């Protein structure tokens, strides 16, 4: 047992301390944290930036996670269909997964660049736009643009996990359904999908947590701009702590993030569990 002590010290204590700081008024330069109970949380209720960043965080998380699951399921089915060059395709789709988040951000800045970017060049040469669009600085386009990059980032892992799930489903089951006259869609809907539910729930829950807590990618792409349009909760908490020195408030934001994700996941897992039971 003593060999577990350093692990407890290193991984549980800092977190416990962080959660506690969320209930204090600690700022940079203060002598020490003073317990102020729900003070930070009361302040949050009237903080426009808090509501705005959590609203953006919710939109980003739902859009990215849904995109990853829907596109990932499609891709996993294609990779499991015995098409030509399947082995090569299974390797190529992993590319974004292996790239560091900062580099992902830089590459997409190149793609989205107003003058030199690939996207604008492609759109103008197709005659779809006349004026180049500054995707990452445009009030309407910035959030959709970073969401696309978010989906691109998480797609490989989601696909690989779902492919793993598909491969555990015995072929005989689908053959039996086909013999009974089930169409391809019916085979998918009534044989494959129900058996895939546990894996789907697991990977979507993980992606949901990771996406809500994501930082590096969007920081490199937009730094939260323009005017806070892509300021996810983590970017907001980072600014509060390390730009303004409001450590207590930043930790309180962290606590609320845990609660939001926790409640959402609890609800989601419970509803999935109930629907498979019933």
């Amino acid at each position, binding site marked *: 047992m003593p060999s577990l002590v350093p692990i407890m010290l290193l991984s549980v204590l800092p977190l416990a301390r962080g959660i506690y700081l969320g209930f204090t008024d600690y700022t940079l330069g203060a002598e020490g944290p003073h317990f102020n109970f729900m003070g930070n949380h009361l302040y949050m209720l009237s903080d426009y930036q808090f509501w705005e960043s959590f609203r953006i965080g919710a939109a980003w998380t739902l859009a990215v996670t849904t995109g990853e699951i829907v596109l990932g399921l499609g891709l996993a089915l294609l990779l499991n269909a015995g098409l030509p060059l399947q082995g090569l395709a299974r390797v190529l789709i992993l590319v974004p997964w292996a790239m560091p988040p900062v580099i992902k951000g830089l590459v997409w800045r190149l793609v989205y660049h107003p003058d030199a970017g690939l996207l604008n060049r492609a759109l103008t040469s197709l005659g779809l736009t006349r004026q180049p669009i500054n995707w990452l600085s445009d009030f309407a386009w910035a959030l959709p643009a970073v969401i696309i990059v978010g989906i691109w980032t998480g797609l490989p892992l989601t696909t690989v996990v779902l492919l793993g799930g598909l491969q555990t489903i015995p072929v005989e089951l689908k053959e039996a359904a086909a013999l009974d006259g089930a169409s391809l869609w019916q085979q998918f809907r009534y044989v494959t999908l129900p058996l895939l539910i546990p894996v789907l729930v697991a990977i979507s829950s993980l992606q949901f947590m990771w996406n809500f807590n994501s930082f590096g990618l969007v920081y490199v792409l937009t730094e939260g701009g323009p005017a806070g349009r892509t300021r996810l909760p983590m970017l907001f908490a980072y600014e509060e702590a390390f730009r303004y020195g409001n450590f207590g408030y930043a930790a309180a934001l*962290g606590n609320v993030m845990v609660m939001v994700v926790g409640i959402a996941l609890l609800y989601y897992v419970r509803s999935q569990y109930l629907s498979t039971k019933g």
Partner: protein
Amino acid sequence: MKRNKTTARAVMFAILVVYIVFLAFPLVWLVSTSFKPAVEIFTRQATIFPRRLTLENYRDALGEEQILRSVGNSFKVSTLSALATLGIAMPGAYVLARRQTSVNKLVAGWILTSQIFPTILIIVPLFLLLGRASLVNTHLGLIGVYVVWSLPFVLWMLQGYVRGVPVELEEAAAVDGANNLQIVSHIVAPLVLPGLVATGLYAFINAWNEFFFGLVLLKDPDLMTIQVHLARFRGIEGLARWGPLAAGSIIATIPSLIVFAFLQRGLVSGLLSGSVKQ
């Protein structure tokens, strides 16, 4: 009927190609940019293959003291933090794998739930602690943070590998009079060596790709890791120097690509065994 099937497969293959282009093209574009002379990067008629291949971007990137130094910093911090994490996790992993107690379930539950906590809750207390110990803006401080951060997953992966070593081997050694320390160092460690290497590589690349903690803790440009350094190339300066930046990005991605190619299967199965255990 037969023809229908061929058309369907052709359509499926076409969709698969679209997926692959979406996922892999940004990296291809980055590689291509890194080999293009400056004039070619900003021409209207961009080509995938550079019309004139050049290594000048790589020469510029490697000739720059800052980039070379930041690669060295990343290498140092990642290697030391990976070794320290393994050293701390190994005894704990052994205990976890060999004793079927309630502690085991507790730790497994902890590792999964720890995914829900945003990094702001870990970095605020650690930042304050490191500040008191004058370890902010030092590599030692960053290494400490990486150990804390990688520990849960490393512990989880390692205990899986220890489980694979037959307990009979240890019992035989104990009968021959070996003490616990000898058993771990002479019997278990050599057998889990492949697992140690895989886990160590995971911890290494976790630190190599990491951005947020480096951004928060390192202020001195001479200490910065490659990710923090590359993220600072933005705006007008960054665009004017896209060639060297692309070359630097490729250099920063190569270790990650190699490790992911090597670990891909293990990472997915590790994740699955952790998340969808029935």
